[in-house]
């Protein structure tokens, strides 16, 4: 017996909350991935990252509306188009922002912080003007609804599995992009020594723009996933940005594996503790644990071992 639950009940609850946390985990991973790429690459802390996510969420909403009105026959697969659109929109807006704002502020962390915070306010207002202040939700196609019953008590939501599968694919893609492609090699070279990267023939400004766009684009996909667990409103991104920063710092900036591990532990911890205690208590406990661990390991969970 654990509290009021029998042992089987308890493990079932753990498992179910764990599976319920899958979508949250996926959103976190995608958000953190984008943020970590941007921060690791250019030292820019993007306070507007949540708004790029929400842009993706609105794109998904638009797509769902469009398909249900004009292409009902294809409604069951609209989500794939929605994700591509979400990525493209956030990617393009990201490149535009880098070109119009960020590139003037490199090596001025405080200024970028303020500027991207200002940008987040502007974007929130823009969403309010364009989409209205009311929160909107998407309709999921039938095949994404419902859940698979593993045992009498344990049920796994299908949309959670779907989103997690996609997240795994995207993460793998990012991993290969960063560590196996020419583009990734250039990006890592720029991170390690920007001046020298230019002096061996790499167009560092272009790399910066693409990288910022990519980080934002991934946030857009996170927004697509987000529509499955929450309703989309102009300020919904704000709720996620703090957690995402926490994940990036906890995982060790610059480590892909660290980011995933920390997103997993934080989302799972929150989702399970939430079942037994209140949501804010879950936050407090997670935060305390993370702070405790960071005091022992300030560099985060994972770091690269090299001579500098």
């Amino acid at each position: 017996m654990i509290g009021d639950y029998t042992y089987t009940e308890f493990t079932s609850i753990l498992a179910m909350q764990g599976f319920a946390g899958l979508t949250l985990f996926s959103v976190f991973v995608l958000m953190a991935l984008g943020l970590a790429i941007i921060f690791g690459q250019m030292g820019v802390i993007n306070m507007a990252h949540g708004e790029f996510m929400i842009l993706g969420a609105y794109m998904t909403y638009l797509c769902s509306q469009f398909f249900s009105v004009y292409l009902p026959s294809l409604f069951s697969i609209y989500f794939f188009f929605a994700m591509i659109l979400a990525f493209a929109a956030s990617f393009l807006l990201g490149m535009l922002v880098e070109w119009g704002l960020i590139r003037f502020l490199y090596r001025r962390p405080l200024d970028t912080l303020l500027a991207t915070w200002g940008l987040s306010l502007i974007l929130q207002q823009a969403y309010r003007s364009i989409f209205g202040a009311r929160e909107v939700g998407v309709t999921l196609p039938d095949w994404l609804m419902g859940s698979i019953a593993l045992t009498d008590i344990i049920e796994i939501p299908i949309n959670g599995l779907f989103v997690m599968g996609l997240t795994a694919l995207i993460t793998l893609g990012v991993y290969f992009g960063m560590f196996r492609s020419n583009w990734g090699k250039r990006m890592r070279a720029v991170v390690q020594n920007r001046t020298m990267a230019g002096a061996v023939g790499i167009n560092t400004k272009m790399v910066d723009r693409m990288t910022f766009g990519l980080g934002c684009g991934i946030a857009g996909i996170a927004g697509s996933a987000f529509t499955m667990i929450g309703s989309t409103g102009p300020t919904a991104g704000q709720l996620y940005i703090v957690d995402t920063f926490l994940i990036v710092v906890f995982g060790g900036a610059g480590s892909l594996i660290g980011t995933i591990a920390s997103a997993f532990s934080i989302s799972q911890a929150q989702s399970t503790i939430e079942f037994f205690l209140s949501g804010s208590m879950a936050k407090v406990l997670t935060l305390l644990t993370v702070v405790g661990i960071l005091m022992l390991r300030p560099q985060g969970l994972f770091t690269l071992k090299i001579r500098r």
Partner: protein
Amino acid sequence: MLSIDKLHVAYGQSKVINNLCLDVKPGEIVAIMGRNGMGKTTLMKSLIGIIPSRSGSIKIGETPPESLENLESYQRVAKGLAYVPQGRMIFPALSVRENIETGLTVTGQTTVPPLIYELFPVLLEMKDRRGGNLSGGQQQQLAIARALASNPKVLLLDEPTEGIQPSIIKEIARTLCRIRDEMGLSIVVSEQVLSFTLDMADRVLVIEKGEFVHDSPRAGIDEKKVSAFLSV
């Protein structure tokens, strides 16, 4: 192959390179010698475009010469200039192979030319190690290999012998001559070690306070006079 005319470079108010002119012929190895703080690194950096020049022109190539002074570093590399900085500055977390491959960016190729590994067999042996875990001398070879990967017309080397033992210095001199012979490029190298310079340079210049105060071909060079410039 490389011609510099009336080049001025300054950090804020302090002028470091003054009215410098230099002509490097195809296949020529030019050594620029000078004591600490005389402006060798500043000259190299302004040639590759890491620090802007105040005025003057930098041209590369023969038919016809192309102006570099208003281009970004990566564009200068694309025009045929390559740079090996003082202190190597390899990418520590990239593998040896990846380090060399970064130099391929402007060529559009994806595989490292075999000649580079022929010149530096040790890099082939260690191609999967992280650059940061190589010894100083190996990192120097890596930095040269990375520069050569962009298939340059002119190679700039800033104090390649710094912190390297005498036997390896001799070997670097031999390798540089071999690079010039096999790849047919011009080399501009800054140096403080006279014996190294005499091992390979076709022409020796001495820089002081940002100006050339001595210029002579290696044949018939007045060694005493050059050493006198370098001591004090």
